[in-house]
């Protein structure tokens, strides 16, 4: 089992400034799943009830000279502590950037290597697996070892792969969030009021969030959003209704779905905004099995989707939800 690659400056920037801060909000540890073509950060795919997040990079988006081999179809997966990974990366960058990154002419002189190693940790007789970063500056070289779990067994990797395949289904209707910052500060304030969030999405492009407890009902409706996938035209009379009535009618007509999720999960999903996506879409999976948020990244300076990066989250639906 071998993995060795060099992080590109773009890759370093993507991870250090954008994805690691975002993924750290999803949960302290995640699976890092490396294949021949992809590096994928996965949260909660094998263990149940948390928010699932999937951040997938084509190897070229992060690495160069990417080499991987394993007896399991060249696939390696392990769990890693994201805050340690982030710290190690930040620390190594202070040395790495002494040379001004790899733009310093002879790039072979100064590269940021990442590899999988087994080492004997201090005060231990058992060798342990590490993800190791290595680079050098003017006067110093630095190695950072990030402890990781034992690589997943063949069957666990298969299970992870099939969970990943299952998690790729897109909802039939997705609506685009108009302003993530606004939504974030709204939900941040809303979460003081209750724990369970009702999310309704219509084919007309309405996103309706509501918290309802015995003491208060608090909601917000965002209308006329961009719809991706199945859409429908709202009846003209709907404009004069209250948000609640409008949503109820849309559900009755089969033009909307509604699920209940944890406010905390919803807030976490918005925090993926730290990865600086260019747009975000919410949708409800078929049969209301989960709430999905898909983030879209553009090729810098264009409006074209950057297919080398993808990020989406799936929010588990609360079981006892559900008059709908």
């Amino acid at each position, binding site marked *: 089992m071998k993995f060795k690659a060099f992080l590109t400056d773009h890759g370093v920037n993507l991870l250090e400034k954008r994805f690691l801060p975002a993924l750290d909000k999803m949960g302290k540890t995640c699976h890092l799943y490396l294949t021949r073509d992809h590096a994928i950060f996965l949260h909660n795919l094998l263990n149940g009830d948390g928010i699932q997040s999937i951040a997938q990079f084509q190897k070229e988006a992060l690495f160069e000279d990417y080499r991987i081999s394993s007896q399991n179809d060249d696939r390696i997966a392990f769990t890693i502590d994201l805050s340690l990974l982030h710290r190690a990366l930040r620390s190594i960058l202070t040395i790495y950037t002494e040379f001004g990154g790899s733009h310093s002419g002879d790039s072979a002189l100064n590269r940021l290597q990442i590899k999988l190693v087994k080492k004997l940790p201090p005060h231990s007789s058992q060798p342990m697996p590490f993800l190791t970063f290595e680079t050098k500056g003017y006067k110093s070289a630095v190695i950072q070892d990030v402890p990781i779990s034992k690589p997943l067994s063949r069957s666990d990797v298969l299970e992870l792969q099939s969970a990943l395949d299952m998690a790729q289904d897109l909802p039939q209707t997705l609506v685009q969030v*108009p302003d993530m910052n606004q939504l974030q500060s709204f939900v941040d304030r809303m979460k003081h009021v209750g724990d369970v969030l009702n999310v309704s999405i219509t084919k007309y492009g309405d996103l309706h969030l509501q918290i309802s407890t015995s003491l208060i009902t608090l909601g917000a409706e965002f209308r006329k959003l961009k719809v991706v996938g199945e859409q429908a035209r709202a009846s003209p009379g709907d404009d004069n209704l209250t948000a609640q009535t409008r949503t109820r009618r849309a559900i009755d007509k089969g033009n909307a779905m509604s699920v209940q999720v944890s406010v905390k999960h919803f807030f976490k999903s918005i925090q993926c905004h730290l990865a600086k996506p260019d747009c975000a879409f919410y949708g409800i999976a078929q049969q209301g099995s989960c709430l999905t948020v898909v983030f879209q990244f553009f090729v810098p300076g264009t409006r074209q989707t950057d297919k080398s990066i993808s990020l989406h989250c799936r929010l588990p639906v609360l079981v006892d939800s559900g008059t709908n």
Partner: protein
Amino acid sequence: MSSSAVETESPDLVCELDNVQGMVDALTSVRWKRHQDAVLELSEHGLILIVEDTGCLQAKVYLQRELFVRYEYSATGRPRFGVSLGLFVDCLNTFCIPGHSSTIEFQYPGPDMQLLLKSTDSLSSCTYAEIRTRIPDTISWDYNFEPAGSTPISFTVKSSALKEAIDDLEWPGSSIQITMQPAPPSVTFKGEGHGDLQIDFMYYANMDLLTAFNCDQVVSHRYKYKFLRATTSNIPSSVIKDNRGSKLTIGRGGMLKVQHLVSVAKPSHSHPHVDSVGYQPPSRIAYIEFFVKPQVDEENAYDS
């Protein structure tokens, strides 16, 4: 308490406010603990929110009708209802998204006696809330505030200085003696507990700090620290920044009245397209009053 509104078509009150943050600030200043029941009283003059603690501390927030851009009052009598202060403030908070102007409409009562709120400033997005109200408890203690003598005994101090002084008195803790004397005109806060700490405001020495002083006799009373602290602990940062004065008056029997002014002015940067050039909205202020009962302690409290 009015039930007439249920029968008649129009609700007791429909009003609209364009500075929710100002209202949040005003209400937050009387939020001294996590769970507080508040009573809202409606009248043709505006809204009053009243909170109370163990018969020793009462606070009132006056939101006069002038603060509202629309105020349609059609009740007879003065309807009152109870709400959870924390929930009310948390809920109002969701209506003020930074960098986003928010106009909010209040209506009472809703079909089920709720307090209804909704944002009205955008067609494509709308925030709404329904807050369950209760029948209020009768207020357990009458806070009739009467002047101690012929002239009111009072002083006005910069709000930030007052807050700082009260924060500093946390260390001796438990009970604080406030003494006012005419010669030399001064106010003394003295804490005795784990140690002694005395803070003097000398009128002639600190006229920019102590901006007004009225006292024709020596007055001295003790107050529980936690109640004194409640009067400044959640004072909004806007009040500290404006640094207007807070007025403290000692009434008959040593009852202490603390008054703050909270600006509910419309933020000047919002709605540039509506405000015509050079138009300055009239200064809009919410009044906050705290009433603190003195500690009953005959040896140390006296009106001379």
